[in-house]
Every structure is written in C-alpha cells, then in structure tokens.
C-alpha cells in the first residue's frame, strides 16, 4: 500500500451528543475525543449504541443535540479521510474487484493506481482468487473481508470497523489483526467495536465502554481489563447478563 | 435556419386539409386526392376530424384548407376573416337508420320530421351524436321543426363520431341519423337498415374553404390549387364516379365554371 501524507482530520470530538429515534433516547450525552495514534475499541453489550455512535461519527446520523467536530479544515476533507466498514456489509451487485474499484473511483484515483491497490488489498484479505466473483454470492466471511478490503484500499486517515471479525475464521481473524497492526503502524487511526474480548485485549490501546446509550468509561486498555471502574463494565467482562 | 417542415417541403411540397371524418372514412378522399397529387406535384395531408374541431383548427391557423359540412359555422369563418374563400363542392344526404323490424314504423313516415316524431312517440331508443357535428346539428334542426325537445331514457347522446355511434346503434338496435357516405361504407351494420331517406330536409352540402393568408400569414399558398381543383370538371367528375355497391355517395355541386366573385 502506498503511504502518502495522510489528511489531518483528528482529533474527533463528540460533545453532548443526544440521539433519539422512534421516541427512545438511544445515545445520551455522549462526549469523547478520539486522538491520533492509539487503537480505540468500543465495547458494550448488544444494543448499547456502538453502531449508532459510529454512524454519528461518520455523519450518517445527525444528533438531536450536541456536536460532532473533526479537526480538518472542512467537512469534505474529513469525509474523504475516513472509511467505515459496516457490521452488516453492503456490497454492490458487481464483482469483488469492481466493488473495490467503485470506492477508489469515487476518490478519482487513476486506473493504474486503482488496479495496483485493488490487487494489494485482495491479496492481503486472501480474496484474489475470488476477484471476479459476484460480490453478493460470496460467503459471509468472504463478504466481510471484501468490505474490509474496500475500506482499506481507500487508505483512510481513520478506519472505523464495526465488528470486523464477527464472521471470520480463526486464520482470517489472525490475519486481520496483523493487518490492523500494520495499518496502524503506518499512521492510520483505528476505531473498532468487537464482542471478542480476547481480540479487544490484543488490539486495544484504549477502551470506550458503552452501556444503554451512555459512555461509562474511556480508559487505557490495560487498566480497563484489570480494573474496570464501573459495575456494568465488571459484569460485562465477566460475561454476565446485564 | 431551422429545419421546419417548410424547408422539408422544398422536396415534397404539401398542404394540410382538415376534412370531415365522413369524407375520409368513406374513402372518397383516398379516391380523389391521388388524381390531384399526380398532376400538381403536391401532396395533401388530411386531418380527419369532426366539423367542430376542423373549424377550431382553421381559426388557429393549423390547417390550410377545410372540407366540411356545417354552413352556419362556415359563414362565421368567412365573416371573421379566417377563411378567405368558400366553394360548394358536393352534396349527399342523411338517412334515418334503425332496427329492421322498425317498431316505431319510421319507414312509413311521410317525411323526415314525421319519422322522428314516430320514434319519439313510441319512445324507441334513438342515438344522437351529441357532439355538435354537422350531423348532430341537422338532427337538432329536425326536432325543432316538430317542436320537440327530445329528452328521456329513449334519447341518448353518444358523444362520439359517426362510426362509433353506428357501432353503438347496431348493438342496441337503436335509431339514428347518419350520412349516406358513412352508411354505405360502414361494415358493422348488424340489424340496422335504412328506414327513411330522400327528404329535401336531409340534404347535406359540403364546401371547401381556404384559410386566409391575411389572418394566418404562414398558410401554404399552394392550398389554392387544391381548392380550385376540387371544383374543377375533373374533380367533380371523379366525385360522381365514386360509388360503393353501385350507389353514388356524393353528388357534385360546384357551380359551373363562371366568373368568380372577388
């Protein structure tokens, strides 16, 4: 992967974000700062609001109150500098290759560079043999890997991953984790959710723990796993029903 | 310049004639116009519409000439300066048609008004065009001569052309007034038969009108050739020669060539 000067769009600040949908308050007074560098992992039980928080960060949902502020000079630049892999990946009705090509053409990359990047990311995600397959016919894990490859190919400053390993086999999970480390080393900020606590421990520099629409903790990973501050986090780590 | 039909007509000059549906549907124009087109290097584009719509087309300057049968409206066009000229071309006649068993006894009527009166008396189903066409206006005039305002279940307005009205009458076994040309040409008669004809009040005269180039500067001047030809010996003879089942549809009515009024 080429490593050009990345867009400086961090830190990302959320201040007092409130989101209400269908009459329920789904995100309540959510405030945090995501800095350059550390890999931030959002943890929390099902329905905590992790996916909603990622959508808010990416400008896909407008909060009913509060602010979402990127550091970049303008919103367009921030949008170009980030990528999001959805929990339930959306693939276009075309080949795996063309799916990635689509994302790169949106960034107006010239054809030779596009081809080269696509090949690289397909190789990394072990999808190269499936490059010409219709994306929607791939298996669950293959689809998730393709969505990841597509986001990755755009070489973002910030990469949001919503449970990227949920459908991956152990080998792919390991490869993913290695890839994430490499990407991070090259200066890309990683923000991810996961339900695999082992993975969270392996990957996270900092943990954001969410519960029922609230951010209960934002701490260094080591201290979260050894000494969680809140009752909820303790129960969550023990795999207790919250 | 924009490629208007005018530019196209450099190769294929044409004039636009709005003609009563009858003259088109009866096949008369298909018989007549090739004779004209062959010698004048001019094609005639026929718009087959009811008289009301034909008059409207003339007022807006969308056609170059008219062949219609609505004397009152024709005079109004002349008066308003929309048409610069009007020439009688031909006549035919209306007939009363109805079910073959003729429950109203219209066939035994003395004259046309009497025939209608008999239909009204027994309240047999009568279909009126109801569309302000020449035929419709003539029918209304006939009712007026017997001081009847036809109303009730037995009197129905079809609001359609002659052909559609005949299609309906054939199905319903109704009486209706029809012009001879349409009647002779019409295929879907069913049990309908001609019951009354020949009355002077059933005369139907057709005129050709030239749309004034003062009122509408863009009308095609060649239309005059068509108007002149329709009243010529050749055309008049051809009109007489057009028959269906041995019956003449239209009788030539142009006055013998004389000095035209200015």
């Amino acid at each position, binding site marked *: 992967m080429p490593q050009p000067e990345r867009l400086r769009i961090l830190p990302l600040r959320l201040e007092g974000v409130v989101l209400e949908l269908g009459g329920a308050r789904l995100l309540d007074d959510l405030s945090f700062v995501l800095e350059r560098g550390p890999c931030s992992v959002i943890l929390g039980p099902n329905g905590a609001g992790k996916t909603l928080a990622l959508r808010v960060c990416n400008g896909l949902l407008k909060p009913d109150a509060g602010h979402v502020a990127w550091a970049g000079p303008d919103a367009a630049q921030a949008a170009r500098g980030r990528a999001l892999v959805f929990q339930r990946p959306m693939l276009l009705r075309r080949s795996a290759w063309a799916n990635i090509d689509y994302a790169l053409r949106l960034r107006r990359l010239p054809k030779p560079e596009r081809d080269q990047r696509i090949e690289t990311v397909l190789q990394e995600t072990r999808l190269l043999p499936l490059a010409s397959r219709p994306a929607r016919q791939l298996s669950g894990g293959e689809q998730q890997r393709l969505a990841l490859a597509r986001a990755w190919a755009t070489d973002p400053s910030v990469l949001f991953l919503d449970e990227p390993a949920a459908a991956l086999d152990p080998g792919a999970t390991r490869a993913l984790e290695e890839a994430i480390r490499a990407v991070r080393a090259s200066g890309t900020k990683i923000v991810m959710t996961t339900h695999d606590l082992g993975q969270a421990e392996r990957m996270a520099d900092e943990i954001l723990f969410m519960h029922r629409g609230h951010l209960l903790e934002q701490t260094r990973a080591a201290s979260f796993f050894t000494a969680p501050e809140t009752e909820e986090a303790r129960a969550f780590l023990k795999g207790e029903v919250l | 310049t924009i490629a208007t039909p005018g530019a196209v007509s450099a190769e294929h000059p044409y004039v636009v004639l709005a003609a009563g549906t009858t003259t088109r549907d009866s096949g008369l124009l298909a018989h007549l116009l090739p004779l004209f087109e062959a010698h004048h290097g001019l094609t005639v584009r026929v718009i087959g519409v*009811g008289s009301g719509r034909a008059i409207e087309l003339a007022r807006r300057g969308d056609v170059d000439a008219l062949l219609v049968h609505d004397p009152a409206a024709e005079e109004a066009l002349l008066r308003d300066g929309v048409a610069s000229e009007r020439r009688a071309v031909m006549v035919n006649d209306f007939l009363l048609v109805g079910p073959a068993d003729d429950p109203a006894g219209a066939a035994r009527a003395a004259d046309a008004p009497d025939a209608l009166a008999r239909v009204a008396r027994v309240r047999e189903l009568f279909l009126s065009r*109801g*569309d302000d066409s020449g035929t419709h206006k003539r029918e209304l005039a006939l009712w007026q001569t017997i001081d009847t305002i036809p109303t009730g279940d037995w009197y*129905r307005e079809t609001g*359609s052309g002659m052909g559609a009205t005949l299609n309906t009458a054939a*199905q319903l076994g109704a009486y209706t007034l029809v012009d001879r040309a349409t009647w002779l040409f019409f295929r879907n008669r069913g049990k309908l038969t001609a019951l009354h004809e020949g009355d002077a009040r059933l005369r139907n005269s057709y005129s050709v009108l030239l749309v004034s180039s003062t009122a509408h500067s863009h009308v095609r001047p060649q239309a005059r050739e068509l108007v002149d030809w329709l009243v010529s010996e050749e055309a008049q003879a051809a009109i007489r020669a057009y028959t269906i089942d041995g019956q003449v549809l239209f009788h030539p009515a142009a006055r013998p060539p004389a000095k035209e009024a200015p």
Partner: protein
Amino acid sequence: MNDLTLAFATALHLILSFDPDLVEIVLLSLQVSGTAVVLAALVGLPFGAAVGALRFPGRRALVVLLNASMGLPPVVVGLLVYLVLSRSGPLGWLGLLFTPSAMVIAQTLLIAPIIAALTRQAIEDLSEEYDEPLRSMGANFPQRVATLLFEGRLSLATTLLAGFGRAIAEVGAVIIVGGNIAHVTRVMTTAIALETSRGDLPLALGLGLVLVGIAIVVNGCAQWIQEVARRAAT
C-alpha cells in the same frame, strides 16, 4: 397561452359551481376505475407475485408476455370486450354492453396485466432476500406469496396507483364498450374526448384539469392511508 388561462378559469368555474352533470361524471369515473383497480388487484397481485416468487420452465417467456401485456392498446381491449359482450357475442345475453359494468370489465382487463407485471418485478426483487428464510420456516407457496405481498405493500401501493392512473386516464376502451352515453356511461375522459371533437378546447382542458385534480386527491388519500397504516403497525 391565453387558452391555458381560459382552461384554468373553466376548471375553476366547473368545480366552484358544483355542476351536477360534472359531479355525476366524476362519480362514475371514480366508481368505474376504482372498481376496476380493486378487481385487477385481486387478480394481478397474486398472479404477479406467484410468477415473481416461483421458478418454473417457461417462466422467462411468461415474463416477456406479462411485460408485453403492459402495451395492450385500450382500443384493442375495448374491441375484444365489445365483441364478447355484443348481442351476437358469447356473453351478449348478459346485456352488459354500454353499461358501466362493461367499462369496468374493459378497464380491469387493461390494468390487470400492468399490476401483475409490476408486481412480478417487485416480488422478484424481494424474494431474493425472503425466499429461503420463508421456505426454511415451512411457509408453503401461497403463504410465501401472501407474505411477500405484505412485506412489499409500500411499493405495491405505487403499483396500484399506476394501475389507477392508467384506468382513470383511459378513454379508448371505455368509449367503445360504454358508448359515452350521456348520464349512463359518460366518464371524465369520454367527456373530454367529446369536447375536443366539438372543438371546445378550453372546456376539454378544464375537464382535464379537474381529472388531474381528482387523481391528486385520490393519490393524496392513498398516501395518507399508507402513513396511518405505517404508524399503526410497525
């Protein structure tokens, strides 16, 4: 565009004066086309959904026929119904020709294929996602069709509105089988055709605007019903 102003004025006058003839014609239009839509939906929705959800040999040819049948000319449908209902036709003894019933039959035949063809496409799109899960739940074929119709109800509403639009705007078929008889089978479109042939363009256009207004009201009501339904259920 003086004519247009005149047409609008005519339309306004027609509506405000609440002309009883106009009211009669409007009601008949709504009644005929409304009934036709209901009948066509009863046939077209299940049939289209069945074709959309099922795979069988010859299906592709059937889809071509179904799509082609959206191009059935009203005049042809009108003539066919006319021949069948005519005194000498097989159903002549019913005496339906030149009655509103005949018009309903013609419009139903005209729009059922449209509803079926558009439904087929909508249901085919849905069944990509739904078919296997429903089958795995043990839903039999009629149950799957019913479920797909229900799940696609929002887009099928647009299909029905397309059918309604075609029916209410249609003149070729109803004038042949209805005869445009004043006070019996005269509807909005045949009245417009009549005024056009009379050369009374402002009145014709005015009636046309009233018809468009009716279509808007009907579509507004449909939308409103949908909103209410959406809010009530899920």
